[in-house]
């Protein structure tokens, strides 16, 4: 018997997978990234439709409750995503600086007249 919250969450996950698929088709994300998100969302779907799965995993890993297991895994994933975002922002910053540098070097001021040799 599926409860209403399970239905809502399952529909949301299907929507999320469809969005990821559309981004993949538009070549906004690579196949590897699409696979990663598919695994994440399909795992979430299994957890939503069959909550005892989390309890089994929790018992296997020595964690008290299934909901704790979900929380720990979610936190780990979130931390990793924040880290990846930070790296991505750093890369973007370097790329902007590279562009700014190239523009600067290609447009120097006119050479000043006062230039002496010894």
């Amino acid at each position: 018997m599926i409860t209403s919250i399970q239905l809502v969450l399952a529909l949301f996950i299907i929507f999320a997978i469809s969005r990821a698929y559309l981004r993949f088709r538009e070549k906004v994300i690579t196949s590897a990234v699409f696979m990663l998100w598919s695994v994440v969302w399909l795992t979430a779907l299994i957890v939503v439709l069959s909550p005892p799965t989390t309890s089994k995993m929790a018992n296997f890993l020595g964690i008290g409750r299934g909901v704790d297991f979900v929380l720990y895994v979610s936190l780990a994933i979130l931390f990793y995503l924040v880290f990846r975002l930070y790296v991505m922002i750093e890369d973007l910053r370097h790329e902007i600086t590279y562009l700014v540098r190239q523009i600067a070097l290609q447009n120097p001021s006119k050479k000043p007249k006062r230039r002496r040799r010894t």
Partner: protein
Amino acid sequence: MKAQIIVPAFNESQIIFKVLTSLPKKLKGISDIETILVNDGSQDDTLEQAEKAKVQTVSHVINRGLGAAIKTGIEWAKSKNTDIAITFDSDGQHDSADIPKIIKALITQKADLVIGSRFLKKQKIPLDKLLINKFANLATFLMFGVKSSDSQSGMRAFSKEAIKLIDFKGERMDFSSEILYEAKRNNLRIVEVPIKAIYTPYSRGKGQKHLNAIPILIRFLVRFLR
């Protein structure tokens, strides 16, 4: 022998003219010396003041940080086939009379990177500056294994080899330690020379902020982990 004095500047209109006109126009043993001001997206009239001082300038269209400005200067020096590149802070903290000293050390001691150290000779340095610099030296040693008495000094001289090989990514204050690491990685010879530090209320206000240490550490950690 060609030399370039690289002066990175961001909103330094109050003092930049004085700094630029104090720089040497000729030096013993150097046939051609040029000053290049890297205007790092200044919003005031730093650029106009530099042009008034009749120095070559290149401008970042937006502010990218001290490290980025220094690298632009190094790239400029590289494109001009320069033999020696000297970096010199634009806030009036350095004494231009130290430039011949660091060039001499580069040539006579066959060094590739000369650091003008503010802490090699006894002089009056504000306690907060002393502590933050000691901390930066320790962090540079722990993270990169390079010992330096002044890892954050703005006055350095690079040999032609160093200009070619040192490739740092740090765009803000984190680049100073990275330069030392790059020198070590490329087996370049590092020499330190004592220089004078001029602390005025203006240069103190412009220098490295104490709280900068935290984002710098985070950036280094992320670079190690990525």
